[in-house]
């Protein structure tokens, strides 16, 4: 999403103000090493840089510049593929503990494969096999426990 520099500059400016305001709530200990100091400096730099980005945008294209509609925004499949990535991460975080790593991973992989126009059978086989392989790699080779879910696994 290509936004006008004026907007992104203002967002950075606002973030800098927010960082400084929030830093006022940190305790101010004696001496030079206050936990407020560095956040205030970083907030100040963000305010300055945000203002510079916005000012430059105004000088170059005035206040009228709108946001550019990206090429992918007219293709529903591309939009779905982009949105799928963050949604898949959230779905895994929300469901893996209760449903188990393999079923959630397999479903997420099948869904994403289909969005890349892979055939249903190929997507299902690949999604299930790859999920099982990755699960076994992490749990047996790397000895990292992953959520098993309600159904006990034979391996």
């Amino acid at each position, binding site marked *: 999403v290509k936004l006008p520099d004026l907007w992104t500059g203002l967002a950075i400016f606002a973030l800098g103000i927010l960082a400084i305001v929030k830093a006022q709530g940190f305790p101010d200990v004696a001496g030079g090493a206050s936990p407020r100091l560095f956040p205030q400096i970083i907030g100040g730099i963000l305010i300055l840089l945000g203002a510079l980005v916005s000012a430059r945008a105004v000088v170059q294209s005035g206040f009228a510049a709108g946001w550019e509609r990206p090429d992918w925004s007219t293709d529903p499949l*591309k939009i779905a593929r982009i949105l799928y990535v963050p949604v898949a991460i959230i779905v895994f975080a929300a469901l893996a503990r209760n449903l188990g790593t393999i079923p959630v991973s397999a479903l997420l992989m099948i869904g994403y494969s289909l969005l*890349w126009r892979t055939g249903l059978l190929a997507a299902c086989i690949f999604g299930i096999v790859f999920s099982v392989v990755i699960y076994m790699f992490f749990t047996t080779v790397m000895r990292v426990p992953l959520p098993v879910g309600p159904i006990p696994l034979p391996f």
Partner: protein
Amino acid sequence: MDTFIQALALVASWEVLVAVGLGSVFGLFVGATPGLSATMAAALLVPLTFPLSPVAAIGAIVACTAMSIFAGDIPAAFLRIPGTPASAAYMGELRAMSERGEVASGLGNSMFAAVVGGLVGTAVLIFVAPQLANFALSFSSYEYFWLALLGLSCATLVSGADKLKGAVSLTLGLLVTLVGLDVVSGTPRYTFGLVDLQAGVSLIAVLIGAFAIAEIMRSSQSAIQARTDLPSIAPGAILRGQGKTLWRHKVPLARGSFLGTVIGALPGAGPDIAAWISYAVSKRFSRNPAKYGKGSSEAVIGAGSANNAALAGAYVPALVFGIPGDSITAIVIGVLLIKGLQPGPLVFITSADLVNAIYIVFILANLLILPLGIIAIVAARRVLSVRNGFLYPAILLLCIIGTFATNNALFDLWSLCIIGVLVWIMNANDYPAAPFVLGVVLGAIVEQNFMTSMLMSDGNLWAFFTRPIAGALGVVTLTVWLLPPVIALWRLARRRKHTP
């Protein structure tokens, strides 16, 4: 000598050799796959290195990145799509050779150049890093503060066309490091009452989010590519006549290797910048500049040696000062920190065997390019025909499970999601990702040294300039900051003067 033998013993273990071997194969695959970068390969490896020893972990990353930088040349030659940005500089040369039916010879040139460049870079690392480390032993928090700040500032300068946006990315990275407990007083900052945020934002979530999730989202915007039929190559054709060609172009080879090492050692300038500059320099001093752009072996050797040399060069500031030379060494520093090792001059004394082991791994990884590179070129037809519909779901799952598995924390997945989306939006608006990650990696070091210095000087900022080296570094850093706006204002004033 004892240290070297200990290092050799560390490398000669099954764990390290298997990690280097698998890292190499993974690097070849990622490098040869258009759209996936060497940095992404390194980021994806981070969670997999979690249970490994520090030598095995660094060995896997070194081998993986060395291989992927070379392997980026393979799709450049076959498809005119660089596998990694480091191959873009001489992609036209490889493609022209390919069109003449000399694809095996062209890729052979780049493979041997990569090996020589990597070995020269490693030699410089072996001889220069310990000397610099000896010098750096006298550094205090003042010098480290300025050094880290100088590294970050240089990284911003070379981050892309828009330095202002590079500076914004860097500052956003520094802001992310403020989340969690304060380094001096232990006060929670920007945690919004969430206990999970007290340890800060997971570095692995940042690395994978910025370099992998954002990249998958960017790739999701592109159209699905049709499969292409590629010519088959015999191993003998890759090796034929390479000795003579390398000897004929020994000067561009040596120049590219040294130039690449020096450029790689500069904070922020990675293999891609090294390859572009080396290509330009090689053309400038060539006896046959007219052949450039038309499939010149000299051009491929001159620039192809530089990108792998830069990879080793970037480890000089990373190991000696803890300042990453590029985004890959930023990841390596992250891995060392996770392993409880703080890069810096002391690591050459306290963990000399580890440092020597890294040198050996570098030599091993570069030599491995020869056999594995030949296999990769021969197998290119298969690697390049992997469908996006299998590739991207597999990477996405690796990102999710890798991030979760590192700390066994579902909360890290939220960080992964937010950082991935944030960096995707930043990239779309020309805010580069590399300074953001460098900011996250170096933020704590900058703040810790700043706070220590403030405590030592009782808040007196003048103390930051009173020690000779600190003062010099401070002046250089301030010059790096002030020079671009001063030059811009001077140019503006000159333009107005000349405008009637």
